């Protein structure tokens, strides 16, 4: 049984790899900062590790899919990320692909 759990976890991880990017691009249409985003994504069903998410946000920013701003209004300065126009276009495309995959799975399962 334990072996099954491990195998399942591996396949789940493979399946979910990449979905965090789309989730970030969608959820960051509204500006947010690292730690709050971690919490928000978990509540929305996209559990991700902090040490994966923080570098990912910077990578997406470097790729021009996110923009960032330091908010120093509060006592603790926080870096806020927001999906750029290019990021929104990517999210649109990736989301469509996800929907197509979903439809394809349904067809495979005979639901059509």
């Amino acid at each position, binding site marked *: 049984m334990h072996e099954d759990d491990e195998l399942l976890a591996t396949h789940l991880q493979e399946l979910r790899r990449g979905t965090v990017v789309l989730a970030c691009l969608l959820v960051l249409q509204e500006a947010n900062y690292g730690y709050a985003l971690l919490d928000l994504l978990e509540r929305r069903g996209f559990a991700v590790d902090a040490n994966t998410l923080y570098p*990912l946000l910077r990578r997406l920013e470097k790729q021009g899919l996110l923009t960032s701003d330091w908010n120093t209004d509060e006592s603790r300065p926080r870096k806020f990320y927001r999906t750029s126009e290019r990021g929104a276009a990517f999210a649109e495309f990736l989301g469509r692909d996800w929907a197509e995959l979903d439809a394809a799975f349904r067809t495979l399962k005979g639901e059509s």
Partner: protein
Amino acid sequence: MTLTDRYVAAALRRLPERQRPDIERELRASIADAVDDRLAAGDDPAEAEVAVLTELGDPARLAAGYADRPLQLIGPALYLDYVRLLTALLATVVPAVAAIIALVRTLQGDPVPEVVGDALKSAFTAGVHLVCWTTLLFAAIERAPALRRTRKWTPDALPEPPSRKARYGELISGTVLTVLFSTLILISPVVSPERDTAGNPIGPLSPWLWESGVLYLFLALVLATLGVTFARYYTRWSLPLAITGALVEIATAITLIWLAANDRVLNPAFVAAAGWPAQTPEWITTGLIALSVVTLLHTVTTSLKGSHGESHRL
């Protein structure tokens, strides 16, 4: 210095200077947010910090994520090329070094245990160098995406299946040639067309070859080559066999080069008796050296190709 300070310092140390201030600020805020959350949930302050940092994991891993650095020495894109090159180098250079050192030491008249020890030591050193530098080279390419140019694999790279019939022909001709060649050499002092004043035959090959026993060493190598040919025909390809084959061929070629270079092949008395022009022995010597060099190159290139093909099959 708090635990967080030490954690942040450990992560930043592995990042480029210009990225540090921004990442430090963000990382500290993220850690503080997470600690606050745990405190609000009623955690002990010290425990909260430890828990947050534990969850963030190894700072080196986090830094690699920020810097987009690979967490592997040689990745899957390069690994096969790395193994192929390394196998080819090890299978050719190491035996060649051992053979050359053994030959040089033998010629210097060193005792056998010393010769063997030196040859093994040199082979080991050569192997360590090859592994070290090849690995470093590939690790560097892994880290410089501009240098990475992976060739697309095509079925052309598949090793050709050797036709058994063709190889059987090779086997027969190889056996006949080896037997003829060895016999000719062995009987050459007796059947020579040239005679000295006493009417005894003058062998065309230097008598030194018999006196020193080098002739028997050479013939042993020739026979070993034939043995390898047989083994190749009757057994499957294996690395030890390939290495033995390359080793024997290299040793034969080097012995011949050394004999020719030191004018140990022809019998000067025979050359004089036959009345050959002065250049003829020189031409023969040069020809033998050229032939041996070609054999050497052929051995090295086929070894490279062989290991290349085998790793495809694995």
